[in-house]
């Protein structure tokens, strides 16, 4: 079949099972957009900013487990994708980003809208390609998807020179990849698994510390089975929310900087820490040398480079979490009642140090999250922005299923949540999708309201409007003696009016007793987004809070 490079690119995407992509056109990607005009079976969502397209592709990937695809033109289009690519990279999200590039004859000449995209994205991609020959397109697309979705997932950039989009090729899609330098190891080494058994067997106070890797490997079911069979409590990272049901009696909820006190105490006291698909990030460990000081460490990860990167491990197991958990479940035997004393101790901590906030007449953000949990029966997909809103959303909503928590953990990208919610809603059209937002963050990609309205997406944007860059203000309050330098947002625009101007619904909620009613009303709106402007207490803080550089049991509780 003879196709232009642009047509071959789209055909290749279809061969990879892509049916939707998010993008924004421009001069150097015009041949692809022209091919898109005629193609069948590929839906292109025009965002209002390339950053929105990248986050939407990322949100789509997180909600579905499939590879998200975004596209932009050369130069400024591509550089606008960069924050989104870096966000996906830090959280190991499978994504393919396609960018137009100037023609090969113009490369390296500082041509109009030329940017060194493979150079710029090299440190924030799993791999990237500059395509100069149309004939390479099918192979490169095949490789890109393979790399993006296997092993430790991540974003791959394909930068396509304009002439490569135009030239004709004889299209044939390869059925396999040949990448001698890329062979992810999925099966855990039997000797290491045996060593893990031994360690689990002698432990009296074990804790499982589960990260986003459990979700990436679709291993939530196995994690539950393993934890139940061994009667071991589970704490998750921010990225791991949903990997283990928060409602389970073995759940310790989240650990780390804004984790629960009982999760942090349990980790500091445990004699065995089983890390699964987690990377000992500084927001989790606090002061590294004092992290889990009494514990032996088992570390299960598909990326060998994660093992020993931050912490010395006693038993490393490189491989796919799902596979390794299955191996562990098959053989592990724990005598009944062995961890009872430990679980009792934990129950005591839970009773003594629950997650809590002041319950009075004031409209507090934590209460709003609890109400969102209640009205959605815990069944919604919760996307978040970054800041206090994100942490309250992590703490006060009960996640019970993987892929229902969508948040920028590693990069902490403000402006991520709303476009990610758009991607998630496209991926899961029947789900209730929320973006829990801050008044600062929502203004970073508010233009995507046009995209959401255009496609009649019933996304609920719950703005916890404290008229502050709240999280930064909190640090200034606690660590900088209340010098609120450049964090006041008192001149915020009227967000309800903004929503309405875009054709979305908007509501303002100022009182506690209006919350539930407003949420229920919002849930009835099915044909457009709805922004809820919650005017919350302004100087509320997120607790627990482990000040940076402290041990995680040295947290401020209130």
């Amino acid at each position: 079949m003879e196709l232009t490079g642009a047509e071959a690119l789209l055909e290749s995407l279809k061969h990879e099972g892509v049916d939707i992509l998010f993008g924004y056109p421009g001069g150097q990607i015009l041949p692809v957009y022209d091919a898109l005009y005629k193609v069948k079976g590929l839906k292109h969502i025009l965002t209002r900013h390339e950053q929105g397209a990248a986050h939407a592709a990322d949100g789509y990937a997180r909600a579905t487990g499939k590879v998200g695809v975004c596209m932009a033109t050369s130069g400024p289009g591509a550089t606008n994708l960069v924050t989104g690519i870096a966000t996906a990279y830090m959280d190991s999200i499978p994504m393919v980003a396609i960018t137009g590039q100037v023609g090969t004859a113009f490369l390296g000449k500082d041509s109009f809208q030329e940017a060194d995209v493979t150079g710029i994205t090299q440190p924030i991609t799993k791999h990237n390609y500059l395509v100069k020959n149309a004939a390479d397109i099918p192979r490169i697309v095949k490789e890109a998807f393979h790399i993006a979705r296997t092993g430790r997932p991540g974003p791959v950039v394909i930068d396509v020179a304009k002439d490569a989009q135009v030239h004709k090729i004889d299209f044939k899609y390869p059925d396999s990849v040949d990448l001698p330098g890329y062979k992810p190891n999925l099966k855990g080494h039997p000797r290491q698994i045996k060593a893990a058994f031994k360690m689990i067997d002698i432990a009296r106070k074990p804790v499982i510390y589960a990260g986003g890797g459990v979700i990436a490997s679709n291993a939530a079911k196995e994690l539950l089975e393993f934890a139940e069979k061994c009667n071991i409590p589970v704490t998750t990272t921010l990225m791991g929310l949903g990997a283990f049901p928060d409602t389970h009696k073995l759940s310790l909820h989240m650990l780390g900087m804004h984790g629960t006190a009982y999760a942090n105490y349990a980790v500091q006291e445990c004699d065995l820490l089983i890390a699964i698909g987690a990377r000992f990030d500084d927001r989790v460990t606090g002061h590294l040398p004092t992290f889990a000081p009494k514990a032996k460490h088992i570390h299960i990860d598909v990326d060998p480079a994660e093992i020993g990167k931050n912490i010395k491990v006693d038993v490393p197991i490189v491989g796919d979490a799902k596979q390794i958990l299955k191996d562990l479940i098959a053989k592990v035997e724990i005598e009944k009642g062995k961890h009872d004393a430990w679980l009792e101790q934990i129950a005591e901590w839970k009773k003594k140090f629950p997650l809590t906030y002041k319950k009075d007449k004031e409209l507090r953000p934590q209460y709003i999250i609890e109400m969102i949990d209640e009205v959605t029966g815990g069944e919604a997909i919760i996307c978040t922005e970054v800041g206090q809103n994100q942490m309250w959303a992590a703490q006060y909503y009960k996640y019970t299923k993987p892929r229902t928590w969508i948040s920028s953990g590693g990069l902490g990208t403000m402006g991520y949540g709303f476009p990610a919610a758009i991607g998630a809603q496209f991926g899961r059209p029947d789900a209730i999708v929320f973006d829990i937002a801050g008044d600062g963050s929502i203004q970073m990609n508010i233009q995507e309201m046009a995209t959401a309205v255009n496609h009649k997406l019933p996304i609920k944007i719950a703005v916890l409007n404290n008229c502050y860059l709240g999280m930064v203000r909190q640090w200034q309050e606690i660590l900088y003696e209340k010098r609120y330098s450049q964090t006041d947002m008192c001149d915020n625009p009227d967000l309800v009016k903004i929503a309405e101007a875009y054709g979305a619904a908007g509501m303002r909620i100022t009182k506690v007793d209006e919350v539930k009613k407003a949420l229920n009303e919002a849930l009835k709106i099915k044909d457009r987004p709805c922004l809820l402007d919650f005017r919350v207490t302004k100087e509320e803080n997120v607790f627990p809070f482990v000040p940076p550089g402290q041990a995680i049991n040295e947290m401020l509780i209130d």
Partner: protein
Amino acid sequence: MKHTISVIVENKPGVLQRVAGLFSRRGFNIDSLAVGTTEKPDISRMTIVVDGDEQTLEQITKQLHKQIDILKVFDLPYEQAVERELALIKVHANDKTRGEITQIVDIFKAKIVDVSEDSVIIEVSAEKEKVESMQKLLEKFGIQELVRTGKIALQRGSGK
């Protein structure tokens, strides 16, 4: 502690940048880096001398391995490898000093590859330490210019 690592890479555009970028952004120290093609034209070998403890070396090796275009990474312990470095050294020389310089050149099994009225260029290929001691001995004559390739190394015997 210094380690010599061999990195076998696919000869693709950007691969050198990937390696260099990885070292700089993760704060690994490169002492020297030498690249060239191997017996297969589409495969290159980089010989990198790095400075760091065992844990750093392990991270470097693993991070390099993660790169798609990198095929093999291995540490070359000194006793198992043949190591060489090539240097060209331009030294001041006149009728009085030329004889003594020639002697030093002979001791190091080096060569004089260019002679002019007031200087010579010496080519030396040896282990890094030897190159350095030769350089030291030549300093008193006045070194005008010097260039070193950085270390290259191959495993002895039938090893990879």
